[in-house]
């Protein structure tokens, strides 16, 4: 990966302090976003993907707190910024859209007022210019009769339309990075495709970089250039999207792919990942995936592997790919032709 990096997250740690306990929601997460590209962050609920995204903009509410790491945006560590400096980044250089379009817009202000706000803060546009720009933005995101829409309230719009408004709002100041936190999860399938298509189009048009948070590998395949797979607050695999789908390395990634219906291979059944995600306060000592991993050895259960390079910019957090591996040296983690259950 020789591309210029717009965002480099290094060893990010975000914890929640509840009744004296530290819950490590994000526990040493590292990933890069190449300029103009899309990075997908994939994981189950509770894997820490949304908290990672919110941490980038420092939108973590108490009792959560970023306790360590670096978030380098264009070479500057955002964690060194003051709150006032961060406000100049938010909605301006880095924007964010959220999962729930139904509740993410303020119900008591018009669409126009809400889009104008960002333009006023970051560009100093007055009401008239702000309204003109808002109309343009609504047109850009494909909202019909935008001049009428700016005077309407969120309740007058459907979920898909509201997500378009959210996108228009996020793009108001031409951000260099857009963080999309499950932008299509709450939408109908047909609308999902439209919204993803829209984000992709706008990305090309504006040369933005995108961080796409999702639990849906279909969304990843469709929109992302690179993928970070997260499990229990850690990145377990990082690769470009083609490699990830063709040659997944981490048993968890393989598990996710096996549980996904596919049309390109002959598939007799879907194979679910056994077990459940461990609760935050009873994390295993070794590899967090070990209790559910079909290949786990004593080493896996006792010691945590590190995220190591395994090829052209690909990284994996698994003992199998290290010299210390104490299991079957010929182990095949992914066998696309022979997708049968282990038991």
């Amino acid at each position, binding site marked *: 990966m020789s591309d210029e990096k717009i965002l480099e997250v290094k060893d990010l740690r975000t914890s929640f302090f509840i009744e004296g306990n530290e819950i490590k929601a994000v526990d040493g997460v590292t990933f890069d976003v190449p300029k103009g590209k899309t990075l997908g962050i994939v994981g189950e609920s509770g894997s820490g993907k949304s908290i990672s995204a919110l941490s980038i*903009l420092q*939108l973590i509410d108490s009792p959560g707190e970023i306790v360590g790491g670096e978030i380098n945006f264009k070479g500057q560590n955002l964690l060194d910024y003051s709150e006032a400096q961060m406000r100049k980044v*938010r*909605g301006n250089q880095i*924007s964010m859209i959220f999962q729930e379009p139904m509740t*993410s817009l*303020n*119900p*008591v202000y018009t669409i126009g007022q809400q889009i104008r*706000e960002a333009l006023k803060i970051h560009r100093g546009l007055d009401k008239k210019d702000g309204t003109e720009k808002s109309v343009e933005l609504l047109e850009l995101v494909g909202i019909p009769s935008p001049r009428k829409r700016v005077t309407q309230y969120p309740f007058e719009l459907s979920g898909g339309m509201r997500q378009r408004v959210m996108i228009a709002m996020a793009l108001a100041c031409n951000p260099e990075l857009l963080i999309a936190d499950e932008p299509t999860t709450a939408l109908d399938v047909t609308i999902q495709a439209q919204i993803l298509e829209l984000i992709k189009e706008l990305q090309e048009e504006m040369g933005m970089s995108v961080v796409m948070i999702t639990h849906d590998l279909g969304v990843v395949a469709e929109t992302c250039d690179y993928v970070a797979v997260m499990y229990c607050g850690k990145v377990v695999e990082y690769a470009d999207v083609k490699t990830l789908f063709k040659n997944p390395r981490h048993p968890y990634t393989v598990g996710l792919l096996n549980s996904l219906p596919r049309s390109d291979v002959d598939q007799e059944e879907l194979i679910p990942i056994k077990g459940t995600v461990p609760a935050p306060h009873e994390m295993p000592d070794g590899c967090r995936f070990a209790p559910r991993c079909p290949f786990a050895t004593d080493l896996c259960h006792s010691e945590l592997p590190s995220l190591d390079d395994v090829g052209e910019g690909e990284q994996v957090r698994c003992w199998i790919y290290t010299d210390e591996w104490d299991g079957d040296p010929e182990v095949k983690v992914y066998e696309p032709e022979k997708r049968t259950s282990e038991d």
Partner: protein
Amino acid sequence: MTVYIIRRILQLIPVLLGVTVLVFLLMHLTPGNPAQLMAGENAPPEMVEQIENRLGLNDPLPVQYFDYVAGVVQGDLGTSMRYNTPVIDEVGPRFWVTIELALYATVLSIFLGLIAGIISAVRQYSIADVSIMIVALFGLSMPNFWLGLMLMQWFSINLGWFPPTGWGSPEQVLLPVITLGTAGAAIIARMTRSSMLEVISQDYIRTARAKGVKERIIIYKHALKNALIPVVTVVGLQFGALLAGAVLTEEVFAINGMGRLLVDSIMNRDFPVVQACILIISVVFVVVNLLVDISYKFLNKRIDLND
């Protein structure tokens, strides 16, 4: 909107009719004869009867009631039995004193309540929050006549800062307004706090933060407007309690308002004045709550008043 307001005003009619029936019956069914009171305890029966005839007290009750309602509809609230003057002349000037007292107390309770509630919500569980909520609990639990007497004892008698009685000058106004407004401020503070806490955790507040909006503007613009609806409801209902509280406050501070007039008139069985006072208080209460309902529309356009 206009249709809604007209409909609500029409709904006033049965409410007020009900109020007149109730008050009329209550006054006439309780023991005590105004004519006897006017004539004096040892007056000869012929004199009492003469007064009764003059006041129309010997007519059948329904006739008396319809005479009264017919008068009210024409804008005539009757004649005070005690002073023999038109009721409107007795009630009018005192009505404004009470309204003034109630309005100042409302303004004070909204002002203090909102500020305290917002501070509490923004710094949940801080020392400020806990102290405000404890003070609010006291404010809520203190009977207002007792608070009035304590304030008077302390600030008027011990310290001599304020005159203990009367109404008109700013010094005279302060203590009664605090007395009457404290409970309301406490209720509004608690309501604002819980309402703000609920709103602050909403997704759209996070959206505003993600846009780069300043924390202060998030609180006062994005959160407060959403949090106000339940608070405004409480203010409207509280206004009724305030009018009732005004009766006690006026007694304590010897203010010649409608509350005091009402109590005196009940003592003297001055039926027309009692009826007029209660009718006016009812109208004020209903109108205030109509205004509250209309204000919802301005706070949240989604609310359809015609539903």
